[in-house]
């Protein structure tokens, strides 16, 4: 067992720069990575330090270039077949070597499944402080990272700090920050780093990877979200989503039941969304869900329970059977020309 020195405190002055882990799968970058670069640009400027994109993968030079265009001063690129697809053990080993060598002060990682898998692994050998699922970031007068996360079901925002250990690490919930647009004229250095991992030393193997539903609900202007009240029948909600040209999303319950893919989950353990219109269909409105949609411009709730907490968090509510309300709403919206008429071939949504 490898263990850090006593208590693992370090000379914090020896650490500088803000790193963002850029999560790449098969050449595609997770949007949250760009969101973090946008947010971290400000942190790096407050600190007077560099913003560094850490890109690990195979054939990812372009990703390094794009990271510079999106705000990084430098991109560190570890490019090797051993890094595609993602596995915790080779990524962890590469990261450990880089931290030992370069001493970053702050490392930010998107709170996706991969990001959480990676962050939990790499924080240990560095004896780093790691805060999970942050929704706000800042630096105090001493340059200490203030990582804020909702606690106690979202009623409280807790600020977590890490005084004596480095790097200060945090995972950040997808959808909280805005991605910066790429600026093709931005200058920055792209540095290739040597892979320190050999395939023979890995302890895991990805036999198959199947990713089909790549919709990003954090980008949607309109969302229709389903919950337990749908009882497995998503027809009425899908029809409403089609009419409104909205993305389908879900509460944790609907995801756990297997009705909707986890990438569409809104809430504490899912994504934060802030669309112009959020329609909650058959969602009771547990705090963990509300936390992920409370910044929406307008919230509509359809639920047959007049006491459902969701009505406290909605601008407009209809107490009624969603299997009746949704079709009637679609019909009225179309009649009044508030949405486009029905397509001959309704769009197939996952």
């Amino acid at each position, binding site marked *: *067992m490898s*263990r850090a020195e*006593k*208590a*693992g405190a370090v000379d914090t002055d020896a650490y500088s720069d803000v790193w963002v882990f850029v999560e790449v799968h098969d050449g595609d970058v*997770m949007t949250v990575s760009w969101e973090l670069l946008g947010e971290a640009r400000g942190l790096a400027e407050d600190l007077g330090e560099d913003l560094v994109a850490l890109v690990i993968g195979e054939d990812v030079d372009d990703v390094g270039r794009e990271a510079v265009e999106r705000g990084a001063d430098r991109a560190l690129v570890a490019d090797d077949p051993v890094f595609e*697809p993602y596995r*915790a053990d080779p990524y962890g080993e590469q990261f450990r070597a880089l931290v030992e060598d370069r001493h970053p002060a702050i490392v930010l990682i998107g709170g996706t*499944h*991969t990001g959480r898998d990676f*962050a*939990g*692994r790499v*924080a*240990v*050998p560095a*004896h780093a*402080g*790691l805060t999970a699922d942050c929704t706000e970031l800042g630096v105090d007068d001493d340059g200490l990272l*203030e990582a804020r996360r909702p*606690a106690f079901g979202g*009623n*409280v*925002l807790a*600020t977590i700090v890490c005084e004596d250990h480095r790097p200060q690490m945090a995972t950040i919930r997808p959808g909280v920050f805005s991605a910066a647009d790429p600026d093709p004229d931005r200058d920055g250095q792209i540095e290739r780093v040597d892979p320190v991992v050999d395939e023979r030393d890995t*302890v*895991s193997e*990805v*036999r198959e*990877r*199947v*990713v*089909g539903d*790549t*919709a990003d609900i954090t980008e949607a202007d309109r969302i229709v979200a389903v919950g337990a009240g749908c009882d497995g029948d998503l027809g009425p909600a899908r029809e409403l989503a089609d009419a409104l040209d909205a993305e389908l999303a879900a509460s944790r319950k609907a995801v*756990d039941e297997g009705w909707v*893919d*986890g*990438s569409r989950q809104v809430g*504490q353990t899912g994504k934060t969304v802030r669309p*112009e*219109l959020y329609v909650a269909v058959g969602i009771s409105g547990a705090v963990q869900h509300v936390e992920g949609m409370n910044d929406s411009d*307008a919230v509509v709730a359809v639920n047959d329970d007049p006491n459902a907490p969701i*009505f*406290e968090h*909605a*601008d*407009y*509510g*209809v*107490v009624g059977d969603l299997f009746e309300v949704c079709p*009637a*709403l679609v*019909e*009225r*919206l179309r009649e*009044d*020309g*508030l*949405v486009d008429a029905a397509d001959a071939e309704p769009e197939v949504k996952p």
Partner: protein
Amino acid sequence: MTDDPTIVVGVKQVPDDDEVRIDPDTGHLDRASAPAVLNPPDRDALEAALGLRDAAGGTVVAVTMGPPTATDVLEEAVAMGCDDAALITDRAFAGSDTWPTSLTLAAAAESLGADVFVCGEETTDSSTGQVPPGIAAHLGWAQLTYVEGLEPEFDDDRLVARRDVEGGYEIVAADLPVVVAVAYGEFEPRPAGLHRKLYAETEFEPLELSADEIGLDDEEVGIDASPTEVGGMETVEPVERERETVDTAEELADALADAGVVG
């Protein structure tokens, strides 16, 4: 080849989410008065571990790190079918964040001779999900997180998992020993049998181990070894909403049009 695998399941006692009340004076949650229960995602972990034993044999041992009262969740684990259970308890653990917590559970895994260490996705009281990868990192083991299904290939010293990833899934084969974190809601926990329940509540006594007994020094664990600290808490102001209730879908359409939300 691993023919008699030791499968260790990490469980935790947490405040019952449904019973936690807000202290009206501070606005903070009053967790002390909430009854303590088994962390719900850990039921999936227990089922996954027992399912592995059903398929491949071996022994399932539940382990928890906590005060002596945490024995309750070990009894629940034994009632569900675990062969044995261990309470890792020491005053030195007080104030541990995820770093020393994962170190402690890693040391427990070694002491108990684990081939597979199964955890729930996260705990409902802190929701970090950091401990399972942390355990794997401390031990240098493989890790499988967000696991929806498991297939033992113990003859080849491997465990194969279906993992939930954004937008799909992947099938990953990991070398033993391995740490597994199962996706919450993916395993249907079996009910406790009556005899087993009676045994757990009356006869069963868990193994009790201190920091020293699992090979840890006091200064490696607890608050002094925890990199993070809570710097402050602020109450979140609720978002103001119209909270207008309408009776029909037609009225809703009109209200949305009037507000300029559609159209």
